[in-house]
């Protein structure tokens, strides 16, 4: 009898993997293990819609009924504590032992901790629904929120906090917000949107001290300014959750190291989503780790196919989005692959920067605008990147020339 498939981590990636195993007709046992008490759910709304809702709810990837109907056993509120690779079994924190034929590690990432003394209960991170509820309880007219880190989570949270009337200060140590992965021209649009909404953004200043007495946080900046807040939300990046894999002796390289089929250094153990680093085929095998919802979803599904023996290499182009106020940003590819860029204006202030490699190949596209103004062209850019197309700068820069027409070329 089959031992079955075990998936550790019940987020977007693990949840999708479980559903995909069943969609592909696998009929052995499928067990999904999560350390949170909830059904598998989508995390992106936590800093956006869920944060401004009066009664935030989980956006579940699968209902209880769906899991039951598909015979997916969901074990929640427990942690996987050890992998016995020789015995092909995972030990859980409640003592249970789960045998597996193939194991998927979809353990995700965890907020990077701010390595400073003085942090207390008013200094928090945002990763889980429980984190979101705790933060939500502090947001409202008259509350003062300090956001440490001008990355996506911090900025989305800042936008949500402003919608609820809180006073918001964003503190970024780098010279500008969104240093990682977002072109300066687009980061500036987002910066100005926050300023227009009344957010105080302080860039280029480190934090010298933090004092948290449980009622208030006082943040001393390197330049001497002190910021007082009811709550400090720290969003300074994420680190892959690799402890279980490392203790089992799997290769680690900025995440659980997997091949293009998402297989770890143990052929019966796969890893996918935020927790793994993998060779990105579209850039000649450059090893990357992505922290993005769509990647988690796609890799969860790909891992499921390969656990069933498909032998399929990862071929997707990275894609990412963020919503702040009425603006939506979408990025296809990794813009640091580009050596030059071409701008395409789409009207209503929306524009796309196409990033080209030295040889003229389109390697990434970054777009921003109101609503979904850039969505269609970013999607087409993603396909062009995947095809390793070399469109002319003239065509990319002329809104009259449809990107779809370049696909056929």
């Amino acid at each position, binding site marked *: 009898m089959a031992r079955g498939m075990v998936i550790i981590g019940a987020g977007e990636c693990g949840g*999708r993997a479980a*559903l995909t195993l069943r969609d592909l007709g696998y009929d052995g046992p499928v067990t999904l293990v999560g350390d949170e008490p909830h059904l598998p759910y*989508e995390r992106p709304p936590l800093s956006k819609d869920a944060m401004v809702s009066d009664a935030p709810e989980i956006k579940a*990837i699968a209902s209880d009924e769906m899991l039951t109907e598909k015979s997916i056993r969901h074990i929640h509120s427990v942690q996987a504590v050890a992998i016995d690779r020789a015995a092909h079994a995972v030990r859980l924190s409640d003592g249970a032992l789960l045998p597996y034929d193939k194991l998927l590690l979809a353990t995700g990432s965890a907020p990077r901790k701010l390595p400073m003394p003085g942090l207390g209960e008013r200094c928090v991170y945002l990763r889980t629904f429980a984190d979101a509820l705790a933060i939500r309880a502090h947001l409202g007219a008259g509350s003062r929120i300090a956001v440490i880190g001008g990355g996506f989570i911090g900025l989305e949270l800042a936008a949500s906090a402003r919608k609820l009337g809180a006073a918001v200060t964003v503190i970024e140590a780098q010279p500008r917000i969104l240093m990682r992965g977002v072109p300066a021209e687009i980061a500036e649009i987002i910066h100005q949107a926050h300023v227009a909404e009344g957010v105080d953004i302080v860039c280029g200043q480190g934090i010298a001290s933090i004092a948290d007495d449980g009622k208030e946080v006082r943040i001393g900046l390197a330049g001497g300014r002190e910021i007082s807040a009811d709550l400090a939300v720290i969003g300074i990046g994420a680190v892959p959750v690799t402890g279980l894999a490392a203790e089992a002796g799997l290769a680690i390289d900025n995440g659980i190291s997997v091949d293009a089929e998402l297989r770890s250094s143990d052929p019966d153990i796969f890893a996918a989503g935020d927790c793994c680093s993998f060779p990105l085929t579209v850039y000649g095998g450059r090893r990357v780790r992505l922290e993005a*919802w*769509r990647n988690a*979803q796609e890799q969860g*599904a790909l891992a499921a196919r390969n656990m069933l023996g498909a032998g399929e290499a990862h071929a997707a182009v990275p*894609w990412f*989005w963020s919503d702040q106020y009425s603006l939506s940003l979408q990025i296809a590819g990794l813009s640091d692959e580009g050596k030059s860029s071409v701008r395409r204006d789409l009207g209503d202030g929306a524009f796309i920067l196409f990033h080209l490699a030295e040889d003229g190949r389109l390697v990434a596209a970054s777009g921003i605008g109101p*609503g*979904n*103004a850039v*969505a*269609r062209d970013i*999607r*087409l850019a993603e396909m062009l990147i995947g095809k390793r197309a070399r469109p002319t700068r003239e065509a990319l820069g002329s809104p009259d020339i449809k990107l*779809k027409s370049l696909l056929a070329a």
Partner: protein
Amino acid sequence: MSEWVEACAADDIDEEDVMRFDHGGRTFAIYRSPDDEYFATDGLCTHEKVHLADGLVMDDIIECPKHNGRFNYKTGAARGAPVCVNLKTYAVKVDAGKVLVQIG
């Protein structure tokens, strides 16, 4: 009671493209397929209520502009994560250069 409602002129939509149509407090998406037929569905994605008319049409698929949920716009069938609920479709006819949708 179903009625035929004029949505747009037939050449308002390019081949293999989509257009938003609002009527009676509801929103629809009108499609022109690569083989020059017209179709209509509910206008909002069943995942997060995003306007599908901002999405990309490829062959008989409409892709949501936000999270890449895919539907066959001819049948309304959901075609991949994150969408699992089908889109409602509506009958369409072209008469004297106008696209008419049967709204029930």
